[in-house]
């Protein structure tokens, strides 16, 4: 079986050359429409930020329940049912009713076509669950209700995150959903990760509300702090306009007093409301509130009917630019927390590439030197195979546009170390066979056959470890499993097709040689 058909030799050669070419294409910047694939460098090698954001859905749930209390009150008012003592606690609504209305409440909530408790026709589960103890009721979100809520706030949040990052202008950001309340952001080659972090950390909920001294305002009032964290003002809860009414926001220099300001323009609805508020409220203070803090509260001097205005608040040019950016891209549905961050500076990335390449070169040289000393001709065969193996591995990584990380480079070096194993198993077996078998060709054939199970076993075990790591590992470590896993396949290919081809040529030319090793 040492014979290789011409066709097989040809195809193995073409295949190897192809992958060597693909691997080498990484080194040259060619603008090629047919082949523009490249190995991606991981964030740990090219520098950049990995951020895992978690959406804090508690305020969203709170807000939805707040709206729901109004809905419930109005709905049952129309049916002449009085809802008593309605309040929100522990992410649930509590209320009680008179005895004769109890059944009606239960029926309304459990009705499959219920107006105030939807989802049943679609999900076979209601949005809300209701529990009763006597005449007291507790309404909270069902599992399905919570999932729907989380999914929708994740969808909104990812959109806003994308807009904000696009505005900063980083190259090729990667923004992905994780679970139903997380967002993964990968930002390669970022100059100022802190800025992005502070941009993503803000909800950017903007409202314009009157400052009031009237504690009995119809909409309720709240005490809010200024940005400096010291001064306070009492502000009505009535919202004149909010961030949703903004069409555009831009940083500007105010030439009169040399201040940086943010100018904005409003949509039609916003402009109308703003005009009305500024005409009726001349002399009053209008507070500009961002995420629960007052930026400034200018006194209204004139009616503003043009639908544009400006915010001043002691900004630097940078902070005005960022505020304008946040206002343009819109408010997040819920606050985001950065629960995991990994940032690598570009110079550390380059250092890692250099170190990885040096380690790879030295590891490679040590291995091929050792193999040559140990096996001479067969060592040479192994080494040539090893080089081709390395190229095929790099070629496959290129073809899949895989991401190469520092642990990934370690995986390649380890592949170099372990790839010789299969050849060693075969050669050692052949040596053993040669002790009893005088015919070189038969000895080689038996050597290949008898070592096969051990080789396959050995590679399957390593492959299993790599597969588990691929699915369980995260970030750079995943890159290790990729190179290690692909390395196993390229090793098997190079051992059984390339090394075997060389050995068969050598052995058939030296079929009568006494000492082959």
């Amino acid at each position: 079986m040492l014979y290789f058909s011409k066709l097989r030799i040809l195809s193995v050669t073409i295949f190897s050359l192809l992958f060597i070419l693909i691997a080498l294409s990484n080194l040259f910047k060619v603008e090629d429409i047919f082949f523009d694939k490249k190995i991606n460098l991981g964030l740990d090698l090219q520098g950049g930020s990995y951020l895992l954001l978690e959406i804090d859905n508690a305020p969203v749930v709170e807000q939805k329940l707040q709206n729901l209390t109004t809905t419930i009150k109005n709905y049952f008012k129309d049916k002449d049912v009085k809802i008593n003592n309605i309040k929100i606690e522990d992410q649930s609504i509590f209320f009680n009713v008179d005895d004769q209305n109890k059944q009606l409440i239960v029926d309304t909530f459990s009705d499959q076509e219920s107006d105030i408790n939807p989802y049943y026709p679609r999900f076979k589960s209601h949005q809300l669950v209701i529990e009763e103890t006597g005449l007291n009721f507790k309404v909270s979100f069902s599992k399905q209700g919570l999932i729907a809520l989380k999914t929708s706030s994740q969808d909104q949040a990812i959109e806003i995150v994308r807009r904000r990052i696009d505005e900063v202008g980083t190259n090729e950001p990667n923004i992905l959903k994780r679970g139903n309340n997380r967002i993964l952001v990968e930002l390669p080659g970022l100059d100022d990760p802190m800025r992005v972090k502070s941009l993503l950390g803000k909800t950017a909920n903007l409202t314009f509300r009157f400052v009031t001294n009237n504690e009995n305002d119809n909409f309720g009032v709240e005490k809010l702090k200024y940005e400096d964290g010291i001064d306070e003002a009492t502000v009505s809860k009535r919202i004149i306009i909010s961030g949703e009414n903004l069409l555009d926001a831009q940083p500007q220099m105010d030439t009169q007093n040399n201040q940086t300001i943010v100018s904005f323009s409003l949509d039609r609805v916003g402009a109308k409301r703003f005009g009305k508020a500024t005409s009726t409220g001349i002399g009053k203070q209008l507070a500009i509130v961002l995420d629960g803090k007052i930026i400034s509260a200018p006194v209204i001097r004139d009616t503003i009917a043009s639908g544009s205005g400006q915010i001043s608040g002691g900004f630097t040019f940078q902070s005005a630019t960022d505020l304008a950016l946040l206002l343009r891209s819109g408010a997040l549905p819920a606050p985001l927390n950065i629960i995991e961050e990994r940032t690598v500076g570009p110079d550390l990335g380059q250092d890692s590439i250099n170190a990885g390449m040096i380690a790879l070169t030295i590891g490679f040289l040590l291995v091929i030197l050792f193999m040559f000393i140990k096996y001479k001709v067969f060592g040479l065969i192994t080494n040539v195979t090893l080089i081709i193996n390395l190229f095929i591995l790099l070629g496959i990584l290129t073809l899949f546009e895989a991401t190469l990380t520092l642990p990934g480079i370690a995986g390649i070096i380890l592949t170099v170390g372990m790839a010789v194993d299969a050849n060693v198993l075969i050669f050692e077996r052949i040596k053993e066979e040669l002790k009893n078998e005088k015919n070189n060709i038969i000895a080689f054939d038996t050597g290949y056959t008898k070592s096969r199970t051990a080789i396959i076993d050995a590679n399957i075990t390593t492959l299993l470890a790599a597969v588990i790591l691929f699915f369980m590992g995260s970030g750079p470590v995943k890159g290790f499993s990729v190179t290690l896993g692909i390395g196993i396949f390229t090793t098997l290919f190079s051992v059984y097709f390339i090394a075997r081809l060389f050995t068969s040529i050598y052995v058939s030319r030296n079929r009568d040689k006494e000492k082959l090793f």
Partner: protein
Amino acid sequence: MIAFNKFYNHFNIVSTSLITVSLILLIFKGLNFGIDFKGGTLIELRSTDTKINVTTLRDKFSQMNLGDISVKKFGNDTDYLIKFENKDNKKNVIEEIKSNLDKSFGNNFNFRRVENVGPKVSAELLKSGVIAISLSLAIMLFYIWIRFEWQFSLGAILALFHDVIVTLGVFSLFSLEINLSIIAAVLTIVGYSMNDTVVIFDRVRENLRKYSDIKIFELTNISINETLSRTIITSVTTLLALLAIYFFGGEILKGFSLAMILGVVFGTYSSIYIANTVLVRLKVSQKTVLREDDLK
């Protein structure tokens, strides 16, 4: 032929004590978890000012009220690695540190790396790490169970446990940091150790079929010797590659390559002195493999 079997009993005592000591270390001293598994913040700094040294830097950082903090040199003289708990998970902690450092030392620091892992994420990472290692052991067990007779599976799995536990024991003894890359190393060790054991077992089984009159005590020794040069060559080449990573691959890969080096050494040892001795103690004979062959 080297009489490995002469020392079966001696090395069984050695292995047992190694495992016992490692377990005691793991239980009482525990592992030094890095921020990946414990949560917290890590900063790698490079200073451009040679007057700054680790003591002044440590003093400065301990004034910043960051909780449990460690400031160490990292690789060369100008690089430092700072780790702290960041208990309250403060949002702008890096900015604060930056402005604090700029105030005291001038703008002389380059923030080369910043990692921040929240408590929730670190708990998840730890969990998935434990699952990954357990799962790999289980899958290896399953694989070897379909490939070999149960006596062989037991031997291979004991060898695997030995390698994992003793490697972790060494990490515990020297308080070396356990991070995500160590999990990768442990999984690779599991694969490597299995690989090594399987090669010898394959030969043992082949020899069992071939010789009916040789006792398992002798037979394992023959098999170990027949595969010995392969065992040595593969360990040497793997170790050469790993040593290259350890010495030239940069600080980040040091822990990973060290764990792998330990694993390869222990893995090679356990294939010879644990896996095989289990076969001897379970009195595996030709009947064991032939019965299985009949079933197939």
